[in-house]
């Protein structure tokens, strides 16, 4: 579904601030893969997701989505294939627009937007059902501005928006990191349900190692803009946190393990 061929990205090249954030990184996701990504601060995890999303052009390499080369496609065109949820709950929704309007914007991702009504009555009914499934009571507040929602409610809504049109790939960048533990648990549960329901191919960054182990069928660890560990299948299923720390130290040197423990 996703194929990254030796992609590289350096920020501020040729200056004293030059940072190599992605270093000829290759990664292939099969259809239906749910991959968790871990790594220390500055390992390049967010840069990886943003490169796939097209937030900035990459310096080299190729990005293929469902067999199609999207390396040169601008961000808004690539969005047709992607669902995204960000770390900051503010980033995923338009705060001055209503819940149903936000959903309607997402429902038209990748479609031509014309002069038909922005939200129809029929789709409102559909949203009511989907919102009720989240179990947060949002179905009763469809006309409320999303700026009034709590962080957890916004992340849940953003998740729903990301999956409203079946994306080829779901990109989650620490989308529970800004929430309190209980809310984070709930949002993660919604994530699991939605991914399962739509059989989504997913790339999820997390700082929580327990989550990284518990979620998905594959686990990838990054350091210095590269993938230093890639576990899947039985190997991933049997993984424990202490196991993981050990493997990290072996794979990326002691330094990596320390960075992870700190973060």
């Amino acid at each position: 579904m996703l194929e990254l061929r030796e992609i590289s990205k350096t920020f501020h090249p040729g200056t004293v601030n030059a940072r190599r954030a992605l270093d000829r990184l290759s990664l292939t996701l099969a259809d239906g893969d749910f991959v968790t990504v871990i790594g220390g601060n500055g390992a390049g995890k967010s840069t990886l997701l943003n490169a796939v999303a097209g937030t900035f052009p990459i310096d080299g390499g190729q990005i293929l989505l469902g067999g199609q080369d999207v390396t040169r496609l601008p961000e808004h065109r690539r969005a047709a294939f992607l669902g995204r949820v960000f770390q900051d709950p503010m980033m995923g929704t338009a705060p001055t627009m209503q819940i149903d309007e936000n959903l309607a914007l997402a429902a038209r991702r990748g479609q031509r937007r014309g002069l038909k009504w922005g939200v129809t009555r029929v789709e409102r009914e559909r949203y009511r059902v989907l919102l009720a499934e989240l179990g947060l009571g949002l179905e009763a507040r469809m006309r409320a501005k999303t700026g009034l929602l709590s962080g957890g409610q916004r992340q849940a809504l953003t998740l729903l928006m990301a999956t409203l049109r079946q994306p080829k790939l779901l990109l989650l960048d620490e989308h529970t990191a800004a929430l309190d533990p209980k809310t984070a648990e709930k949002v993660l549960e919604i994530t699991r349900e939605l991914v399962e329901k739509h059989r989504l191919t997913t790339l999820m960054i997390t700082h929580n190692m327990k989550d990284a182990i518990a979620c998905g069928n594959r686990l990838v660890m990054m350091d210095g803009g590269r993938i230093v560990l890639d576990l899947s299948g039985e190997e991933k299923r049997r993984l424990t946190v202490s196991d993981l720390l050990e493997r990290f130290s072996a794979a990326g040197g002691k330094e990596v393990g320390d960075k992870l423990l700190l973060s």
Partner: protein
Amino acid sequence: MNFFGSLLNALPGAVAQGMLWGVMAVGVFLTFRILDVADLTVDGSLACGGAVCVMMIRSGADPWLALACAAGAGMLAGLCTGLLHTRCGIPAILAGILTQLALYSVNLRILDGKANQPLSVDKYPLLVSQRYVRELSAHNPILPAVAILALLVGGLYWYFGTERGCAVRAVGANAGMARAQGIDTRRATVTGLMLSNGLVAGAGALLAQYQGAADVNMGRGAIVIGLAAVIIGEVLFSRVFRNFALKMASVVIGAILYYIVLQIVLQMGLNTNDLKLLTAAVVAVFLSVPVWKDRLLQNKPGGGKRHA
């Protein structure tokens, strides 16, 4: 008594002028509040609209056609600013200033090299004219002004409810989210700027007819008057008017109130030359009120977080 008598006498004029500036203020509302950019093109596009309209009517064109062409010219100005901003990466404010400056020369060309071109209501069938503002007749400019405003607010309400209009609103509310939902933010920004400047130039065309002349300087400070109208409307009505059409209506009412208050302070003896200073001061104060309110609330003991 004399004060109120002459105020009453001046009231229809203030209302009519406020309504025509209200058209302009709705344009400013679109960029300032919906797109979240401060677009300084408007000072130039207002005069551009006036110039195009006056010159076309003088050469025998129908006033409605002249109005449409004026709006079209304003849209071109908006396109210019939009492309400078989105394609050339020039900050929106600077892009607006560049277009505005360029328009000064363009407007002088349109006005045949003169700073001012008169348009007599005796010779041409104008849509609105100051002369009839106190008459109870079909010529009264307030009637077409009301009709135009109603059409405008209705049309914009419809547009911003459509898929395309919603996309433009999303870009102003959260550009990153808009891109993630597949919206071309650059195109939406250009669209918004074109729409706004089209309205502003249309207002310029109406104002030129109303005053009976187009002046190359007629747009000076227009952005501040537009902002004043937006802010007055918000301060007075933001708690009651939540509907989008009503928000636009409150901007128009803001413009009318602005001209009524202006009339009052002028009659109280304010020097006309000091008007712009007063307007700028009022806008500056109202724009800073929310910021100061937050700051004061935060510094109160026990009221919000403090620095460690």
